[in-house]
């Protein structure tokens, strides 16, 4: 445990060594021969030269990233320190689902040569922690068993798809025993209670370069700043440089605040460690911290002024920082600014501080992280151990100075931890309820005291540092109350991260603001249909098989006839997912033309691609206008599918608004399918407006695919501002032609020979002529198989479905039943229909009252030689015809005065009646 602590206190200083040589004239970049690293307060210097294997600060303390250093370079001012590396992977960095490809249990010290392209190989040189020894082990030889702890072995390479035998040539140029054992540990001696008393002050003043702390802070501040809205940046740029120092001080506060607010056990642990380092000093901690921060501020101010001449432009970023840097916001900065920009500013400004290192590391190789997505174990401990073993350390008791330093580092540590939170999934596990992100690591509550101390401290500081930017206010508020909103925001972040990693734990976060427990309501009821006792029988004969395949619900292997549409939608969604942007698409087409099916197919393919790490992961959410009771329920459903929260429509709208307009770390693209869009119409159209407005937000990463039936829906029902946001990405699905329908059936049947060719053609031609609805086509085919089955004399001797069967099915489904119904009506009913027609002819109108018709009816029945019926009977006859909708009637309370109209054409009636008589 101690070793973590040692690293915590490290303040490393990086200096270029050797003569710079011009590396690229255009970019004005310089190459450097080696890099000198020293731990602040110690004389010893570690030299890192290209060709060595290095450890790079990662988001995992136990296991830092491993890489081989290829080249150092920087810019004119020599302040930017960059390095080109060849990455190595630990097994833990390999995606979870690929780990099995290894086929054996990995050696604990094993690493893999990384051959992938996805990862930026340019890193910030200041994230280098130290060197490490890497040894190539040939494929067939076993790992050297009692290997030293600080040697890593490489045997295989990893190209994001598979493990391959590593070509030894790649490892050739390795200077075999490179790790020049540093004369001094990179980690400060205050690690143990007996650490060296270091005079920190002199070292700092002697610095030829600006104080790394300040620089780093400024750099980190720029990142923080980036997380804030861009609009505010410009106003803040006007602020003078010296504010950076104050801000950096306040940044510590905010970091601490976060530490206290987030209440991470991990943080607790760190704090506790620092307690362990200064035993018995707990009580004075607050005072010391105060003092330290004051001093820190002063010195920083001085240095930042010094700096201003050389690095003013990068400090512009720096001074535009805001102290409000909440957990969820930090990594978004990376997203908002191009990679280059942020890394440059970091490189120029950030020296050794831990939190920042972590951050910059997260910046540069984060592509790799994304692909790796695995849990990293902190590796720094190894390093620390190694260092402490190698270097003769003078055990010294802690001085107040170092204590101060430690206090400061505590805060840094907290921030670092919070940064970690964004990236590390390790920390997320099911824990007690008051922790957002409970850690797996053992919780030791003794740090509670410490935590409160630092929180008090934070508050005190916050009052002292005059609030410079408007951003401080929210941060202060958040500090004091740590509102629910923030919590929920953090929660969503956490949940997202979790979802991304496939750890779909059903557990809802405990602090959902909406969670009201209503007693006696079955709130946790799981929706399910009872399962059957006897399993469903499988289809028996060929016709059964064909019927099962022809059912609309059966998902075909491929969707024929929609290749072009598929490709267009695929490209659209894929490009959006790749770019991390948002967009809308409107898809129209009559029912049964495969709109929803095509999109589902697209999503299936994309999901597969993202499983294969070809594209970033994304979330797919589907809502259907028909499957909700009210357009505003769309919000509720989207939110529930995103975050599993159940809230009211208004609240959901607010939460979604916040979610899509605020930056959040590790936000993956959300693909939202809105089916039956026209049902989401409201008078103010605010639901549609929001759905189309969110994708245009900067941080939304939302792709909205909308489906409706009419091609001109945007023009017809949407007001301008909604239609404009929907954009012009439109697609229309044409009804299927008969050839396509035939192809669909054939592909569904997939070599099950159940239909005659002609029969299929008949069905598809008929349907294509009527609607082009594939569902209809499949239903008719299914019915035809049934007719075929029934018409066969023996159930076993069923042949193919023939034309006659299809004809019968078509007749059943398409022929109007009116004529049959008239034919089957009773004599008086038929007579009444004739009377209606006679009366229409007499009046020359298509409408008559019952009374008028009844007169005709009576006359007709006399002609027919039938006993005339009473008025009541006549009315009953009329009502019966009205119930079948052969006649259209007015309300029956009008009695004899109700008007009668025919619902069938007169010709049809006469035809049907004639057929009856003949």
């Amino acid at each position, binding site marked *: 445990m101690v070793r973590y602590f040692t690293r915590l206190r490290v303040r490393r200083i990086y200096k270029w060594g050797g003569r710079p040589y011009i590396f690229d004239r255009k970019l004005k970049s310089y190459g450097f021969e080696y890099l000198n690293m020293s731990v602040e307060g110690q004389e010893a210097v570690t030299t890192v030269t290209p060709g060595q294997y290095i450890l790079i600060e990662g988001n995992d303390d136990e296991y830092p990233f491993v890489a081989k250093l290829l080249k150092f370079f920087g810019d004119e001012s020599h302040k930017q320190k960059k390095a080109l590396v060849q990455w190595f992977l630990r097994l833990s960095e390999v995606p979870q689902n690929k780990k099995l490809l290894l086929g054996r249990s990995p050696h604990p010290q094993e690493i893999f040569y990384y051959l992938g392209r996805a990862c930026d190989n340019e890193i910030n040189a200041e994230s280098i922690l130290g060197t490490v020894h890497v040894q190539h082990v040939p494929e067939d030889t076993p790992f050297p068993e009692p290997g030293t702890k600080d040697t890593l072995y490489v045997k295989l390479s990893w190209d994001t798809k598979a493990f391959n035998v590593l070509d030894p040539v790649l490892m050739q140029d390795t200077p075999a025993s490179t790790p020049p054992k540093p004369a001094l540990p990179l980690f400060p001696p205050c690690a143990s209670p007996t650490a060296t008393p270091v005079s920190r002050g002199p070292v700092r003043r002697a610095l030829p370069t600006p104080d790394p702390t300040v620089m780093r802070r400024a750099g980190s501040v720029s990142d923080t700043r980036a997380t804030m809205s861009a609009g505010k940046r410009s106003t803040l740029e006007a602020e003078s440089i010296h504010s950076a120092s104050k801000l950096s001080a306040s940044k510590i506060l905010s970091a601490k605040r976060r530490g206290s607010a987030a209440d991470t056990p991990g943080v607790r642990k760190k704090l506790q460690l620092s307690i362990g380092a200064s035993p018995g000093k707990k009580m004075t901690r607050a005072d010391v911290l105060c003092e330290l921060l004051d001093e820190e501020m002063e010195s920083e101010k001085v240095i930042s002024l010094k700096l201003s001449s050389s690095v003013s432009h990068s400090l512009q970023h720096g001074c535009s920082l805001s102290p409000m840097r909440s957990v969820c916001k930090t990594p978004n900065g990376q997203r908002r600014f191009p990679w280059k920009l942020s890394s440059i500013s970091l490189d120029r400004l950030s020296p050794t501080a831990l939190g920042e290192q972590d951050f910059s590391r997260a910046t540069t190789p984060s592509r790799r992280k994304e692909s790796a997505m695995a849990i990293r174990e902190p590796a720094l401990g190894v390093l620390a151990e190694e260092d402490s073993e190698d270097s003769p350390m003078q055990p010294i008791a802690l001085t107040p100075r170092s204590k101060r330093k430690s206090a400061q580092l505590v805060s840094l540590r907290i921030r670092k931890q919070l940064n970690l939170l964004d990236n590390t999934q390790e920390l997320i596990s099911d824990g007690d309820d008051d922790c957002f992100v409970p850690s797996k690591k053992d919780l030791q509550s003794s740090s509670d005291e410490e935590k409160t101390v630092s929180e008090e401290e934070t508050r005190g500081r916050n009052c002292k540092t005059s609030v410079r930017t408007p951003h401080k206010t929210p941060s202060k508020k958040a500090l004091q109350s740590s509102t629910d909103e923030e919590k929920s925001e953090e929660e969503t972040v956490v949940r997202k991260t979790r979802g991304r990693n496939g750890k779909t734990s059903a557990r809802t976060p405990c602090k959902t603001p909406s969670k009201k427990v209503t007693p006696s*309501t079955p709130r946790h009821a799981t929706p399910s249909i009872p399962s059957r006792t006897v399993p469903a029988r499988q289809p028996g004969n060929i016709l059964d098989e064909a019927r099962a395949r022809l059912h609309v619900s059966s998902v075909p292997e491929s969707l024929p006839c929609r290749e072009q549409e598929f490709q267009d939608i695929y490209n659209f969604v894929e490009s959006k997912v790749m770019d991390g942007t948002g967009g809308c698409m409107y898809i129209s087409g009559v029912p049964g033309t495969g709109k929803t099916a095509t999109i589902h197919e697209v999503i299936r393919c994309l999901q597969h691609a993202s499983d294969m790490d070809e594209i970033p992961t994304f979330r797919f959410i589907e809502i259907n206008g028909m499957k909700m009771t009210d357009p505003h329920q769309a919000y509720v459903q989207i939110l529930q599918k995103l975050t599993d929260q159940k809230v009211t429509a208004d609240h959901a709208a607010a939460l979604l608004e916040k979610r899509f307009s605020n930056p959040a770390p590790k936000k993956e693209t959300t693909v939202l399918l809105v089916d039956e869009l026209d049902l989401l119409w409201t008078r103010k159209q605010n639901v549609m407006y929001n759905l189309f407005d969110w994708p245009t937000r900067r941080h939304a990463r939302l792709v909205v695919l909308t489906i409706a039936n009419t091609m001109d829906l945007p023009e017809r029902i949407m007001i301008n501002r909604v239609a404009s946001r929907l954009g012009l990405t439109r697609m229309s699905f044409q009804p299927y032609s008969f050839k396509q329908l035939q192809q669909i059936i054939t592909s569904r049947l997939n070599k099950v020979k159940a239909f005659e060719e002609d029969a299929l053609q008949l069905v598809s031609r008929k349907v294509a002529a009527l609607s082009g609805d594939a569902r209809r086509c499949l239903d008719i085919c299914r019915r035809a198989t049934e007719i075929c089955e029934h018409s066969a004399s023996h159930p076993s001797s069923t042949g193919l479905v023939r034309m006659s069967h299809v004809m019968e099915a078509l007749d059943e489904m398409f022929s109007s039943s009116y004529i049959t119904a008239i034919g089957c009506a009773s004599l008086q009913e038929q007579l009444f229909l004739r009377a209606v027609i006679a009366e229409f002819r007499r009046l020359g109108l298509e409408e008559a009252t019952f009374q008028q018709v009844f007169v005709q009816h009576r006359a007709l029945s006399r002609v027919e030689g039938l006993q005339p019926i009473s008025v009541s009977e006549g009315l009953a006859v009329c009502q019966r015809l009205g119930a079948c909708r052969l006649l259209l009637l007015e309300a029956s309370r009008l009695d004899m005065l109700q008007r009668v109209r025919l619902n069938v054409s007169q010709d049809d009636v006469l035809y049907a009646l004639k057929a009856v008589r003949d």
Partner: protein
Amino acid sequence: MCTLSRQRKGSIHELVQMILRERFCHQRLPEKPVGMESQHKHLLELLRRTAVHGESNSVLIVGPRGSGKTMLLNCVLRELLEVKDVNKNVLPVHLNGLLQTDDRIALKEITRQLNLENVVGDKVFGSFAENLAFLLEALKKGDRSSSRPVLFILDEFDLFAHHKNQTLLYNLLDVSQSAQAPVAVIGLTCRLDVLELLEKRVKSRFSHRQIHLLSSLSFIQYLDNVRSQLSLPQDFPDTKFYDEWNDSIKTLCEDQSVVDVLQRHYNSSKDFRSLHLLLMLALSRVSASKPAIKPTDLLEASRVCMVDSKANILHGLSILELCLIIAMKHLNDIYEGEPFNFQMVHNEFKKFLQRKSHSIHNFDKPVVMKAFEHLQQLELIKSMDSSTAKIQKEYQLMKLLLDHSQIMEALQKYPQCPTDVKQWAMSAFG
């Protein structure tokens, strides 16, 4: 001994009454639906596939009122549930468009009948939106092979089509067309144009299977049917009575007057419900003293069935009211069915009084008014104005809801109707 046999006889009649009443009141399903064998087979096969293979289906049973839609379905369900595999494996859900008048109620009812987990006792928890989401989620979670098939039986299917957005129908039919829990949606309706009621998306999801129940029964079959309906079942305890009764029924059905009556009924409507009403009336006249249905019973029953509903009301009117109706009839003749008001009727009535003052008492206007209002209450006349309040009672436009023939018939049968009034009814100037 004598009393004992009489008692036994009495009990036999009660038994006959009970058996036949059950039959006529649709309390017992027939052994086999008559005249709809192919439809029966089709439906049974369809539901069996849902129950056994887990295939989702949707079907509409269309037929005029009284054509036996529900009977057919119930027969099929009875037969289906007799199969051992199926018995415990299907979940029938019965809905009626007249009871579940909107989707909110319908959803609660579905959830209650399925007894999902948000049902406690008989109460369904959650809002409308929650219920819908819950049900859909439940159905979505199911799959073809492992979930119990749900049979949604929607009586008065056309009324469900009037629900807002047709949400329920869309969702049920959508489930039936997607790989979710197996469902069969069975709609019963008498509207032939029911598909036109469905919205295009809903319509596309419906499988377009329709089972039409249109009886093309000939009169001979109809007669056979009457005989079999009136005959006692073979397992009747008293064989002697059984033979007697069935013989009497046979002779009854051969009687010419009975055949005429039945022909008349057949011409009017072919459905069994009206026939059952007729037979029920005839059956109720059977007693211990009259151990068989006689042709006169059937004639009387037919008379009761066929009687004009307004004739009875007319018989109960006073002479004054009758006179007013005659006045209205004349006004109708003069103005060719144009509406009239009280003043016109009163004038017409006064003219008659002036001519024949001796035959009828000269009523005051308020009395006449009262009689007029009574006629309105009996709905023999109907106000044509929608806003009755604005116009004075005397001038409200009215229409007569009686046919000529009805009035004349009533006058013929009216007891002690003054001759003058009868004559006046024949001619306006009589």
